[in-house]
């Protein structure tokens, strides 16, 4: 091993890379250093020691020694606050680009000691604080803005604590082998294509189900504004989309071929919008893009499959 790689701090702090399953914080994973307040306190202690020598004052000595000892003991307590903690992460729920994704992380305290002020967050971002009772497990959702479509590794999370006295900062880097799936942002100006691409379904006759009101559900991005339940919004019941259905069902093959003139991302977003609309309109639809063909189908699983195909278009699976 070359000297430079030995001295590589990043490697020292996280030699293992991403890890799957439950992580247990052992002494190899926990780092501890004095905080700025800790260093200042050290200097104050030195000044107090000099004062004690100078005035030959026993109680001043005693105070200095007491505070020194308390600080040293607090270091052990700070370390103990993290030691043995068990953590695992779950794959976050897929969201559309532009939304906020939530990474659920489970913390479990195996010891018989309550752990206070454990903080969890992305590096250099405001963390979330967790307290754990003995043998208690808790889910914490770390928010991360989903900026672009695709499957992204969640990267490194910092877990730290300064409890009890704030003179020491004990931390550990968590690198879960978990990736977040982000669907493309549904956008584009074109409405769901109607004529030439709509084929008659096996059941019922032609026609879109937009005549009969069958209920409502929470708003999803991409829903038509015409179908928004404005009255409900005015009554502060949140964003609701009215759903219409007919007794006829249609089949639609959404295909890359329909959008020849746009850029790739715009195409993907447009296709995504159509998939969303088709799902909301209870159409039976299929998706054809380079590298993926999803046969005509319906339902949540089919919907997710289609969106995933769009999300991963052009990326390694």
């Amino acid at each position: 091993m070359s000297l430079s790689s030995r001295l590589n701090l990043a490697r020292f702090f996280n030699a293992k890379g991403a890890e799957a399953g439950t992580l247990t914080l052992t002494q190899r994973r926990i780092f501890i250093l004095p905080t700025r307040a800790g260093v200042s306190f050290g200097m104050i202690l030195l000044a107090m020691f000099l004062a004690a020598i100078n005035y030959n004052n026993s109680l001043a000595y005693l105070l200095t020694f007491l505070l020194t000892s308390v600080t040293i003991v607090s270091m052990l307590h700070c370390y103990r606050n993290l030691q043995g903690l068990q953590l695992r992460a779950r794959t976050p729920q897929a969201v559309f680009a532009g939304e906020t994704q939530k990474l659920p992380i489970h913390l479990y305290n195996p010891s018989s000691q309550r752990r206070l002020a454990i903080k969890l967050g992305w590096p250099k971002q405001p963390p979330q604080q967790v307290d754990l009772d003995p043998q208690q497990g808790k889910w914490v959702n770390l928010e991360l803005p989903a900026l672009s479509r695709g499957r992204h590794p969640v990267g490194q999370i910092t877990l730290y604590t300064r409890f009890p006295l704030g003179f020491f900062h004990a931390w550990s880097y968590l690198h879960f082998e978990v990736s977040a799936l982000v669907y493309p942002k549904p956008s584009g100006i074109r409405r769901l294509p109607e004529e030439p691409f709509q084929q008659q379904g096996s059941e019922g006759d032609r026609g879109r189900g937009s005549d009969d009101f069958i209920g409502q559900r929470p708003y999803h991005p991409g829903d038509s504004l015409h179908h928004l339940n404005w009255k409900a919004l005015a009554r502060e019941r949140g964003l609701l989309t009215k759903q219409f259905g007919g007794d006829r069902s249609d089949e639609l093959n959404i295909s890359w071929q329909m959008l020849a003139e746009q850029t790739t991302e715009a195409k993907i977003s447009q296709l995504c919008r159509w998939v969303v609309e088709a799902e909301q309109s209870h159409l039976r639809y299929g998706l054809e893009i380079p590298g993926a063909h999803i046969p005509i189908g319906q339902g949540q699983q089919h919907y997710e499959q289609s969106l995933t195909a769009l999300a991963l278009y052009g990326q390694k699976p």
Partner: protein
Amino acid sequence: MSWWRKQKPKRYQEDQRTAPVNGVIWLLAALLLVILPHLLRQPGWVVATCLAILTWRLFKEFKGWALPRTVFRLLLAVTLLAGTYFQYRTLNGLDAGTTLLTLMLSLKLIELRTLRDAMIVILLGYFLVLSGFLYDQSILSGLYLLSVVLLLTTSLLVLNHSDEGQSQAKKEYFKRATAILLQALPLVLILFILVPRIPGPLWALPNNSSSGTTGLSDKMSIGDITRLADSDAVAFRVNFTGEIPAADKLYWRGPILWQTDGRNWSTLNRADPFNALTAPPFTHLSEAIEYSVTLLPHKQRWLFALDLVVEQPEQSFLRRDFQLLHKDKINELYRYTVRSVLDYKNSQLLPQERKKALQLPANSNPQTRALAQQWRQQASSDQQLVTLALNYFQYQPFYYSRTPPALRGEPIDQFLFSAKKGFCEHYAAAFVTLMRGAGVPARVVTGYQGGEYSELGDYLLVRQSDAHAWAEVWLQESGWVRVDPTRVIPPDRIEAYEDLQRFTDTRNDKLFNPDTRWLHSAWLQTQRGWDAVNHQWSQWVVGFDQQQQQRLLERLGLGNLNIFALVGIMVLLILALLATLSLYLLYQRQKQREPLQQAYQTLCQRLAKRGVDNAPWLGPKQRCQQAMRKLPKQRQEIKSLFNHYIQLRYTKNQTADAQRAFIQAVKRFRC
């Protein structure tokens, strides 16, 4: 991997966080305790300012008052600085420094917002606690130290747990702070005993001239010692290596008064060359006794010792008149060991010494001189002259009183011939005047007489009320001899009971006085117990200096180690202690896993016994398939168990009840 990071990465800093309200309230309580002992010493305007600021802050926390603006704070700071300067005419020195620190600490309170501010206040607070010890090191101060540290530590805990008091941890803060403090105590002990004490000071100490001296002084005007007679304050405590000598031998010599103007007596002038002479040779007539004296600071140079010192402490000087002097003033508790001889004989009187011992102002106290001349004619020897004088005190109606009448005109004449009522200094002064008038060299010795034996601590307690004055005369055949004219006053002419028994016994038999009731005796016992505790405190804590440390190390068998070996031992001990503490803290019931995992593990192990593959890489679904194949009879049960587990482990809908149900199901499962 910064695809989710926001564009303006304003770096989050933990200590820029707003300090939580409950933490600030703890902090205010702790600071009140920190400032309190200082306030008792500060001028009124400082007290008022501090309390006003503290109240303001409290109103901010509870009533939502606004904190003052920057301009106002700046003005206030400058005003307070100027105020301190005008108070003390300096910003240097202990008094001014403490005032300034107290004010600035209070001032910081009105701009305290972030966690960082709070930490600064706490650090300053610790320093202020320390400066308080430069004024007072009593046991109460020690208890105060512990409680302040406990309170400040608790505040730190609350501040660093940024929860706004909504968790159940509330009761736990104090408990945890106490635990940390207790765990730190063994470490404190090691550090206190083994950190090498460096004799200070490292820089010049500011003169602490504000407080007056206590105890004896280098002058005696008649009426002075009476002032001390009513003071219960401790002068010093003595530990004897062997037996304690009889009470009538316990004459603790202090300043020797040679010079007189007829009314006032004083020590020799500082410049007098006689002061530079060392003790003359003398003959021992008995074994030397050894004892250690723990002297409370009296801001003078003299040390107290019995009669003739044969082995003096370091950094001290034994004068020709056997007065023991330290090289510096005693400003702190000082402990020294001395060896003395109580029976001795010396036989050399220098001419200048004789001259000084006969000095009397011309024309003063004519009646006294006449009486002395008359005795000179009668007596055949100096020894007989002493007896004549003592008989005079014994057979004339002389009273020993703490409240003697004021003496005007020629004081000794008035005392000897009309008032006949006096305290020890009257008798000593009168006796020496008589001796000098008759041509016998004599001097007044001041110091303490007797003491009170404490069985609890096995030491002799000497109080200010034991202050005494007596005489020494030069006799040809035996040299300087102590004569205590007060002792010849018959008991029925001694007014105070304490004065009567002080010469007879060190065991305080006030207890057996028929007048005293049980309540009084219990009170005395308590007092004595408290003093014993105080003595231990001053010996082992306050007076724990370089010499005491050396003494203790010798007792522990580490006496002949050099400083490096000592530090090495200390470091090793600390490491061993920390290792023990870590074992205790970190490895208690460490093996426990999450109960869900534990139950799943149990399930897998049970199945493995029936031949189901237990490889760690197998997922629950694969295991389930295998188990169903191997144990077809229990297909349904196995499937439901695994599905339950998958539900709990990988999906959102998991409640504590569901988990408990799964664990129970695993327990019941037999295959």
